[in-house]
């Protein structure tokens, strides 16, 4: 029986159990003289019985699917010869995958021994499949009969069902915790392995980044350089450019929309600006690389010639096609609605009485904003900016598409730099051997990124929270 078929059978069985147990509770009730003699509504008896059947069957099914491959693998090992079994782990893995490809018919290996083993595997699989089907169907039938016979009017069906429901909700909500734990573990373990190969101080303070490893391990100079400072400066440079665009524009937009604009203007302009936040980053990356970068290159090239013409001795400007400026500008545009909507919330939270007080003293609208509202909203605005910075640091696609991979230690926005996220993707696209320093370096970078963004968010949320308490 195929897995989906088995699943369907389970579904039908559970549904049948629900129906029959519900009917039975009704018939029991009519013997007693009405539905009010039951502890719970009939539907709860049905659901309770269905849960009793479904949960154990699903558990069996799940565990079986998880473990059967490992068990079959162990069973396969006994057919290997003595010397095959003493192979190293990698070679054994290779041998097993060869056998695996024979079973699927995609290999042309003609070794009679391997073909025999693959035949064994096919047999094991069919036996396992059959056994699983029988176990599940038997337990389903057994459990549903058990539920049928155990059904009594005084069963606390509703309480049981409610407890299960509550447990399910709790389980779902703990997924957030598991995700965080999963992120922390996956990043930390690989990072620790990386720091065993490359010392941590070299990673954090080193200024050379060239992760290209040689192909063979015994080659001379096989360890690349893993100094991440150029990546950090590159990330900072691009984020700074983005912030230079996004913060003034976003802030002024928020101020204008919340203090000056009529509600009609507001209701038109705000959604249009929000569009910027909804455009996928891959589109921004495309735009940055194919439109903005050439514009900057061509525009500044002309400018460079002009400067040379005037005789100023800085020479023609060298503009890279993958300049940090293009990526930073586009990223800034992307972040504008983020900054403006967050600051909008903060500015709107400033109580009207502060504004009225300032107007009463004769200040103009802009003076009220600059001298009263802005200082009052400052903590919230700082929080918003910090959140925006953390988004800029973690942004991936724009920089992957518009920025190069050469790690240069520079603060010139017209040169090509590289960022943490760009390096993570370049290191991980392609082979996934989990023991080379190259792959592990990506996880170490991920750890740095995670810590920085988490820290920024933590600080920002705390600032915002503290500020809110003042006026509530």
């Amino acid at each position, binding site marked *: 029986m195929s897995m989906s078929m088995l699943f369907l059978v389970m579904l039908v069985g559970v549904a049948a159990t629900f129906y029959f147990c519900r009917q039975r509770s009704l018939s029991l009730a009519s013997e007693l003289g009405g539905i009010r003699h039951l502890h719970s509504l009939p539907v709860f008896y049905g659901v309770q019985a269905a849960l009793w059947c479904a949960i154990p069957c699903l558990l069996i099914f799940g565990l079986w699917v998880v473990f059967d491959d490992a068990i079959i693998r162990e069973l396969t090992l006994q057919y290997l010869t003595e010397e095959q079994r003493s192979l190293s782990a990698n070679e054994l893995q290779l041998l097993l995958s060869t056998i695996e490809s024979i079973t699927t018919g995609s290999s042309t290996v003609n070794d009679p021994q391997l073909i025999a083993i693959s035949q064994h595997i096919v047999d094991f699989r069919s036996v396992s499949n059959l056994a699983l089907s029988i176990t599940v169907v038997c337990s389903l039938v057994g459990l549903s009969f058990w539920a049928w016979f155990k059904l009594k009017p005084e069963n606390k069906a509703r309480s049981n069902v409610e407890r299960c429901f509550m447990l399910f*909700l709790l389980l779902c909500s703990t*997924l957030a*915790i598991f995700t965080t734990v999963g992120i922390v573990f996956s990043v930390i373990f690989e990072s620790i392995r990386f720091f065993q190969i490359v010392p941590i101080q070299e990673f954090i303070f080193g200024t050379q980044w060239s992760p290209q490893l040689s192909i063979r391990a015994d080659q001379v100079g096989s360890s690349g350089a893993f100094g991440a400072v150029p990546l950090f400066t590159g990330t900072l440079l691009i984020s700074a450019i983005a912030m230079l665009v996004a913060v003034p524009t976003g802030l002024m*937009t928020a101020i204008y929309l919340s203090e000056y604009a009529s509600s009609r203007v507001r209701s038109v302009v705000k959604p249009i600006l929000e569009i910027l936040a*909804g455009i*996928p980053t891959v*589109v921004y990356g495309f735009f940055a690389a*194919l439109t903005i970068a050439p514009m900057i290159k061509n525009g500044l090239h002309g400018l460079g010639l002009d400067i040379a013409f005037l005789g100023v001795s800085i020479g023609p400007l060298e503009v890279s096609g993958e300049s940090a400026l293009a990526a930073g500008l586009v990223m800034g545009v992307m972040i504008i609605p983020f900054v403006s909507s967050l600051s909008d919330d903060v500015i709107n939270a400033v109580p009207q009485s502060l504004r009225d007080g300032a107007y009463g003293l004769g200040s103009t609208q802009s003076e009220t904003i600059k001298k009263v509202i802005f200082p009052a909203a400052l903590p919230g605005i700082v929080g918003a900016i910090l959140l925006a910075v953390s988004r800029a640091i973690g942004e991936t696609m724009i920089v992957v598409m518009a920025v190069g991979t050469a790690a240069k230690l520079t603060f010139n926005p017209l040169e090509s730099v590289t960022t943490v996220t760009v390096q993570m993707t370049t290191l991980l*696209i392609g082979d996934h051997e989990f023991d080379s320093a190259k792959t592990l370096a990506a996880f170490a970078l991920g750890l740095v990124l995670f810590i920085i963004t988490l820290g920024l968010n933590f600080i920002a949320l705390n600032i915002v929270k503290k500020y809110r308490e003042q006026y509530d």
Partner: protein
Amino acid sequence: MTKPEIKTIDKVNRTLGKRYRAEKRFRLYGMLSIGFGLLCVLFLFTNIIGKGLSGFTYHYLQISVEMDATTLEISDTSDLNQILAGNYSAVVKRGAYEYFDVSSRRDKSAARKLLSVDGTGYLLQDRFKVDAKEIINTKSMVWALVDDKVDFYLKRLGEPGEPGKHEFSEKQLQWIHAAVESGDLQKRFNWAFFNNGDSAHSEEAGIRGAVMGSFYLLLVTLALSFPIGIATAIYLEEYAPKNKWTDLIEVNINNLAAVPSIIFGLLGLAIFLAFFGFPRSTPLVGGFVLTLMTLPTIIISSRASIKAVPPSIREAAYGLGSSKMQVTLHHVLPLAMPGMLTGTIIGLAQALGESAPLLMIGMAAFIPEVPTGVSDPATALPMQIFQWFRNADAGFSEKASAAILVLLMFLIVMNTLAVWARRRLERRW
């Protein structure tokens, strides 16, 4: 004589002009920044649409092709294997030579290079798959795909510098222009772009595989994130006691909402691929990762809409003897559902446009086949755009722009749906 006393009102009046100017300037800054934002939206869209629209069309040359059975090497039209292995390129080439009326080897080679012989061959093959018996040994007119260089050149005619012209010899240019004037070489809507999967040749490449991949991704994401997100929201709003554990859950959800998406890719790589051994590049794993990413969005908006349900409804239900589960499932949930749906659609729209985590789990791969299930290797729309963007071939950049338009269209539809759901279904209390 005493000096005339300077009154405060004079001081105020003296600075008044300056203050009003400052006020105007400030207002201008605000208008300018809004103008800048609107200009960005306008520029972005005109730029992308301008680039992308040409990707939906392609140049075709009408030639007459003789479907000669011996040249095609098809003896039995009912044998699918023979039809699949047929030598379609040979008949296309012959048709091309006939059209351009060439006989020398050099001319033949020059004529051949103007057409995408293999791409046209696939078109013929598709036609043979449907009714081979009817068309074999007949002569029929075929719209043959031109080479992507020809397409590039023709689409940019009249631009300064004549891009793409240097690729052709004098004779080839003559041929091209003659064909254009006679109406045999036309720009037509490129259906292959919607019907094909990815291809190594830009003229045959299409987005069908990517669209289906994205569809399966969203299917997995929806199937997981909607129930889990709603369950979490219900738990936190209706059930959770005020204790450390609940605080921990809330802090985690808020933090996950701000974790960069690439980190989720690392999680998928280390946990789902390396630890659990799920197959790479499948919508299943991609859906898992996107689920974890969109969950905070869905949870936060679902909680807001549960909070908006007035307590009086709950109390009335309790008063009639409902249990907690009944109150939640029969009264609170249906009333909060429109808001939850809006949040879910917005979350899915985010997931559709997301690329960085998919990059990490190997969905940026060359996969020509159209996926037929959640466990087939697949790519997604943003990944396809990225792939084509990285391809140095000029034809692919145009395809990427066209794919961006398709992606944006999907996003616009989803967001409009969300806005509609909010306006139409949501109840104000």
